[in-house]
């Protein structure tokens, strides 16, 4: 399965580069667009793991909706849309780097310790596990309560957002 390995590393490097772009970009709109690359890379990784439904949800919700909200959010503020050196810098670079490296080290060590020797055996059963119909069965037969509660949650979120956005 060397193809998978190659695909994984290509995607992983692209995602890491784009993620650095998100935090390094001086233009906040560019940062949001870099985020699209990271999220799309995550979707592609899901495909590599044969989690087809999750991958397309990632595209629909994150790239489709969340990034749109980001852009609208940026538009609503006075954040500079052009390069503005310094305005977006909170001068925590070194502290941030130390924390990031620490978390990275801890997570790598622990994840390798817990899952290091395990392999995902690719099979048709695995593919069908990630298909929409299997997820649907789970949602409608096991996670019925959260599913219905989510509709009330979305309704409340919309009502709350409209209250905040109304001018009167």
């Amino acid at each position: 399965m060397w193809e998978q390995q190659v695909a994984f590393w290509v995607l992983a490097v692209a995602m890491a580069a784009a993620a650095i772009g998100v935090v390094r970009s001086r233009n906040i709109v560019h940062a949001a667009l870099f985020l699209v690359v990271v999220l799309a890379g995550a979707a592609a990784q899901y495909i590599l793991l044969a989690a087809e439904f999750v991958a397309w949800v990632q595209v629909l919700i994150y790239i489709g909706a969340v990034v749109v909200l980001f852009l609208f959010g940026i538009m609503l503020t006075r954040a500079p849309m052009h390069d503005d050196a310094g305005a977006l810098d909170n001068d925590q670079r070194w502290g941030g780097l130390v924390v990031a490296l620490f978390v990275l080290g801890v997570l790598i060590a622990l994840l390798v310790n817990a899952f290091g020797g395990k392999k995902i055996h690719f099979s048709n059963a695995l593919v069908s596990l990630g298909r929409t119909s299997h997820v649907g069965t789970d949602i409608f037969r096991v996670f019925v309560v959260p599913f219905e509660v989510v509709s009330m949650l979305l309704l409340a979120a919309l009502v709350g957002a409209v209250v905040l956005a109304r001018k009167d």
Partner: protein
Amino acid sequence: MNPHVDFHAFAPEIVLTVTIVAVLIADLFTDDSKLPARIAALGVLGSLVPVLTLAVDGQTRSLFGGAFVVDPFSLVLTGFFLVAGYVTLLLSFDYIGEGDYYQGEFYVLLLTSLLGMIVISSARDLISIFVALETITIPTFVLAGWRKHDTKSNEASLKYFLIGVLSSAVMLYGMSLVFGLANSTVLVDIHKYASGHTPALFAVAVFLTLVGFAFKVSAVPFHFWAPDTYEGAPTPVTAFLSVASKAGGFVALLTIVRLGFFPSGNSWQPILWVLAAASMTLGNLAALRQTNIVRMLAYSSIAQGGFILVPLAVAGDVRGNAAWQAVVIYILIYGAMNLGAFAAVIAAARRTRSAEISRLAGFGRTNPAIAVMFSVFLFSLAGIPPLAGWFAKFVMFRAVFDANTTVAVVLGVIAAVNSVIAFFYYSGVVRRLWFDEPAAGVELSSPRLPVGLSAAMGLMTAVILVVGVYPQFFARLGEIAFQRG
């Protein structure tokens, strides 16, 4: 096959959902500004009916492969949340009605948050717990910022939102690691997994999950949002946040620790121990220095949260259900005391037009009825017999003595010292109420208190006195909660 849906088990949720929809429709299609409030109050009381019928039935109903369980525990807490929600409504009617706020929307959001709470009492898997927890918090982000044109309220909402989202992300990451390791989101399966040999990653997963909860219940060192949010939010919303929403976090924490992480004691006990000790100490020390009554109660509720965490932190060494019972009994009593205290703050603020403690000077001479009840709530929070607060502290210390390990005893000593510290600031307010000269400018002949507010205060005073004198009542509820149905 499609699962058989036991509608009786869902009846409280269904009634509340229908109520929310009815409130929204009433707000949209009628001009009667009082109607949404009436429907909301009626609906919350209506949801209590199926809770009672389920309690009489007494059968444990486990649905969807154990993801949703209706047992005595969930019924006791569902009942608690509905009553707390009803009292919050009593506090809100006039506050929201007079302030020219959006009324229908306020009740829709409040009830949706309440819906999340009653779902969380029955939720027994990570996905249900997470969705219910978000349903509790997301409406309250908006409620905290309900006074849109007040920058303090905006600040309250924004701080709460940012911290809330961050804590959800941390918690979700922890939960996803738990799922990855245990291969299931159902707590029963996680319990099985935790009984075996677990890698170090599991401890980190538990840690991240608990940190998320620590934010939700504003345990030190994840508490810094609470005082600002409590101060800026409308006071009825603050009462709701400090009681119902906080209790929601504790119920989820209790469920997840008791039914999920329990066998792996080394992974969760030290974390809860530190959270408990830090919350009690820092909450109380900070409360001593407050000049604003709402901020003082915010720090006091952080400290009370620490007391609730004490039996949880020692639960691994307590045989039987004494520790879990202590948590549930403490939550029930804390709810009554804190709702009462905030009701009294609202009532007092209607007279003094301020939340500064100094403005309460001599309040007992000008408004004896409110001051008496205010004193009852504060002394109960301090844990003075024969008010209900003493029993909450008693069951907490009993759990510590049951555990009887060195770490438990140390925690018990910290709790005892903190109870003494807490007495100072609670009694400081009471002293101001009764022994200081009235401040100038306090209205003496102000309009009568709204009925809802008086009813809420009276009800909470009655609960505190009755439970303080006959603690068997709540003790029995605590026992019932952990009986096998």
